[in-house]
């Protein structure tokens, strides 16, 4: 029997990017807010100080900051014909754990979606005809437009202090930026990071082959910065320990460096860590949430009543919590009916591995997000007529880590171990690099999330089941993008070039990306979405899923964090300015 705590105005489930942003905005508005976080408290100086933050074995190999499958896992199958089995060791994607969530271990790549991405189905049907899209492709327009979200992108980038160069300021093209991007209301808060030799060579080759290279927008800061909350960030040292690591130098944007110390100053905000929310509680009508129930580390159950419930966990776990709480109709892939778990999507990544001649790339001088990129083959920036696929992605040279344990490039034919392997890595390390494509992942009728009929977690709740595979559309796209990238790479005059387009079936055992999207999709139609345009549940009006990637109707050719942050601010404004005045459905 859960013990009941005093009621709060707002309970936040998960204290990562969206939880911190919503916590700050609503505490500032005077509401009494509590955040419940499954993992531990994490703080820069005590949890990832520079004295040991760059421990590759601990963080990148043994995955210290990540969720352990014995805390929570899911089952997986490629298609409905298979029996899903539990993931016992996360590999393809790595959900974060603890305060800061994925905002601690991310790379800092800070991308906006294209204006056409927000109306992707309408746009593609207008340009290529009603019947152009595959019948089982379930992509849909976002319920918000780029123009509506632009100010919120701007706000999140100013929170992070993102480094970059605008390509489009209020419609005016800017030299040196991304010519394909949507309009920006202002320049990036900080200038681009400095580029290394590899990125410079790539940019030269891209320009010579008729492309439009620009510096990747990065929330690893090129210079010291004070954000609108008064938080001070330092200059990035290019140490190269971003992805899978916490930043010890206060220079990668994270909830820790950008929000939490300011949030903790509010006496009307508290955080409860090491406590797992087990369900959202509903009243007898099922149309209103009464709060949440959580379990602490002693196995003690607590009920936290609240007027507003904000579901701010990692995308996959948002979906599971909605399913376990019975909010919204679960999706059935057989019939295509139902919404919760529908339109699960991912990201289609690939690479072209190069070994150059006589170059010293100093690949260890790195950040999570700097590099030179082209966007010529993203979204619908290029004509898809006759290509046999839709979608696209950015591609380019990112100098992101080259850490000693996991970066051991060798020429083809080198033995996998022994003296020759050691000699080859020593000779190759300075010359090798990997170019990458970062492609879209459109949604399909059969790719979904539901509750597993067999496997349960330590608390007796069903695990969530993932059914996912790459479709022909994505594999063709990846082949096309990888070929284009290889063409540019050839202009870099490499000694060795190995294109590695994404191949099916989707393999759960190799790392690809932690960009899991969809499942609690936002939309204009309750028949095909869980949330309305304000990220509010259609069924239970005081439950919001404020912008986690689970709200994406499909995934586009960019990293999700900027859109996640923008939607968090968008939802915070809707709650503060609209919902509080008149609690009820906003649409």
């Amino acid at each position, binding site marked *: 029997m859960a013990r009941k705590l005093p009621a709060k105005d707002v309970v936040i489930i998960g204290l990562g990017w969206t939880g911190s942003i919503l916590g700050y905005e609503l505490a500032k508005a005077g509401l009494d807010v509590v955040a419940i976080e499954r993992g531990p408290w994490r703080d820069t100086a005590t949890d990832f100080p520079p004295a040991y933050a760059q421990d590759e074995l601990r963080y990148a190999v043994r995955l210290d900051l990540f969720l352990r499958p014995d805390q929570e896992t899911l089952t997986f199958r490629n298609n409905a014909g298979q029996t899903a089995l539990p993931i016992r060791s996360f590999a393809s994607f790595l959900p974060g754990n603890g305060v800061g969530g994925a905002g601690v271990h991310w790379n800092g790549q800070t991308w906006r979606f294209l204006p056409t991405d927000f109306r992707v189905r309408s746009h593609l049907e207008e340009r290529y005809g009603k019947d152009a899209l595959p019948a089982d492709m379930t992509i849909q327009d976002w319920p918000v437009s780029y123009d509506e979200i632009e100010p919120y992108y701007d706000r999140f980038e100013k929170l992070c202090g993102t480094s970059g160069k605008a390509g489009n300021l209020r419609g005016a093209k800017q030299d040196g930026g991304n010519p394909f991007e949507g309009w920006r209301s202002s320049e990036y808060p900080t200038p681009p990071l400095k580029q290394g030799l590899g990125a410079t060579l790539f940019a030269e080759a891209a320009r010579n082959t008729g492309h439009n290279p620009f510096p990747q927008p990065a929330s690893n800061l090129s210079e010291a910065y004070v954000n609108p909350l008064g938080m001070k960030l330092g200059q990035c040292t290019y140490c190269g320990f971003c992805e899978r690591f916490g930043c010890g130098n206060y220079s990668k944007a994270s909830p820790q460096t950008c929000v939490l*110390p300011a949030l903790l100053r509010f006496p009307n905000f508290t955080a409860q860590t090491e406590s797992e929310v087990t369900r959202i509680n509903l009243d007898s009508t099922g149309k209103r949430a009464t709060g949440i129930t959580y379990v602490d580390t002693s196995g003690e159950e607590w009920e936290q009543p609240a007027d507003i419930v904000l579901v701010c966990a990692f995308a996959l776990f948002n979906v599971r919590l909605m399913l376990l709480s019975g909010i919204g109709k679960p999706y059935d892939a057989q019939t295509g009916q139902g919404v919760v778990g529908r339109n699960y999507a991912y990201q289609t990544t690939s690479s072209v591995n190069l070994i150059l001649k006589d170059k010293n790339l100093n690949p260890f001088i790195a950040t999570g997000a700097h590099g030179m990129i082209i966007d010529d083959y993203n979204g619908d920036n290029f004509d898809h007529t006759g290509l046999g696929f839709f979608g696209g992605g950015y591609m380019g040279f990112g100098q992101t880590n080259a850490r000693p344990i996991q970066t051991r490039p060798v020429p083809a034919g080198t033995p996998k171990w022994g003296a020759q392997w050691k000699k080859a890595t020593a000779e190759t390390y300075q010359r090798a690099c990997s170019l990458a494509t970062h492609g879209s992942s459109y949604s399909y009728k059969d790719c979904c999330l539901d509750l597993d009929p067999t496997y349960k977690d330590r608390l007796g709740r069903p695990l969530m089941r993932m059914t996912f595979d790459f479709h022909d559309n994505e594999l063709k796209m990846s082949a096309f993008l990888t070929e284009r990238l290889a063409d540019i790479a050839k202009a870099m005059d490499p000694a060795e070039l190995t294109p590695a387009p994404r191949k099916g079936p989707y393999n759960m055992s190799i790392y690809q990306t932690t960009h899991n999207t969809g499942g609690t999709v936002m939309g204009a139609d309750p028949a095909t979405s869980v949330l309305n345009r304000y990220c509010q549940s259609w069924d239970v009006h005081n439950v919001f899923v404020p912008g986690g990637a689970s709200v994406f109707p499909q995934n586009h050719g960019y990293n999700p964090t900027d859109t996640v942050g923008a939607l968090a601010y968008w939802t915070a404004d809707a709650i503060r300015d609209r919902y509080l005045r008149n609690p009820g459905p906003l649409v």
Partner: protein
Amino acid sequence: MRSSLAAAILLVAWSGAVAAQDTQNFDRIEQGRYLAVLSDCAACHTKPGGPPFAGGLALQTPFGMLVAPNITPDRETGIGNLTNAEFLAALHDGRGHHGRRLYPAMPYPAYTKMSDDDVLAIRAYLATVAPVSNSVISNQLPFPFNIRLSMAFWNALNFTAGRYQPNPQKSAEWNRGAYIVEGAAHCGTCHTPKTFLGGDKNDAALAGATLQGWYAPDITNDPRKGIGRWSRDDLVQYLKTGANSWTLASGPMADAVTHSTSAMTDEDIFAIATYLMDSGALASPSRAVPVAANDDAMRAGAAIYKDSCAACHRDTGKGEAHLFPRLADSALVQSDDPTTLVRVVLQGTRAVSTASMPTAPAMPAFDWRLGDAQAAAVLTYIRNSWGNAAAPVSPGNVASQRTSLAKAP
């Protein structure tokens, strides 16, 4: 007409006389609340997270342990029974209940400079806070210091009672600053060196002192050891926000910024700045000779600095304003007493968080990673690089502080 005016004056005079007693005189209570901020009563009398003014943490003095008493209006365990005269005697003369002598951990040698009106305003405010029943045994000193009569001799040697006397040569702002620094804010309690009896060395006011395992730095206008190279804006910003382009407040000063200086009015901050920038003897500081760069400790220190410090404090030692304290040209880094430096390297420390600068960056602990000789070498290096010059830090110094920090509660 005339008589009614006279009556009005009488009324005003009468109401002034009882003001201290009037629990509904909110202007008076607000005045007292603000003076309690200036005087930082909460620093000692409120336990972190505990009810306001209901008694504090144990204070480690060189003579033993003292605990700040409960000063809520609780009649049994607080000061509800104190008369105004007794309250004045406590702050001005160091006399508690029934004339019992207080220990100067209660900074009556500073509060004695405050006006009767200000002291009684604090009293008026304290009378309004929630009474809390909490018995505090203040005197936990060992023999013979636990005999309060000993304070009679101490006072005779070290204490001069008397209100602040304005210096007519100086501006009103300067005098206000002096009143706050020497009186209410009792800066010298930490920053003025002490005699072996614990009395202030009055000829070296605010020249820096060691207490509770920290070195409270020299805050005179001495350009090398003090804050003489700070601009007025630097000082104002430091007091208001806890950070400026030179340094960040941490340790006991973080508490002082949180509870006191960050809540002061701009006028009072400016007054403090005016006074401090004009305080201290403009001595011609004898410049220390830097330790040679080829010294073994310097060479080891340079390597350790590169590995462990440069990522934040930079190769140039310039750090980053409001985030990573500047080491080059820093008076604290070059101070004669390296207590704070050793402590911060071994144990780490967190900077203060204020409303305008909430970041509260922290220095991580290095005690698990640097041995005594290594910590000494890197400190010697930072004290003698980029134009800095100061005596080397010895491994023995690090070792003894490591031991005392391990023992600290």
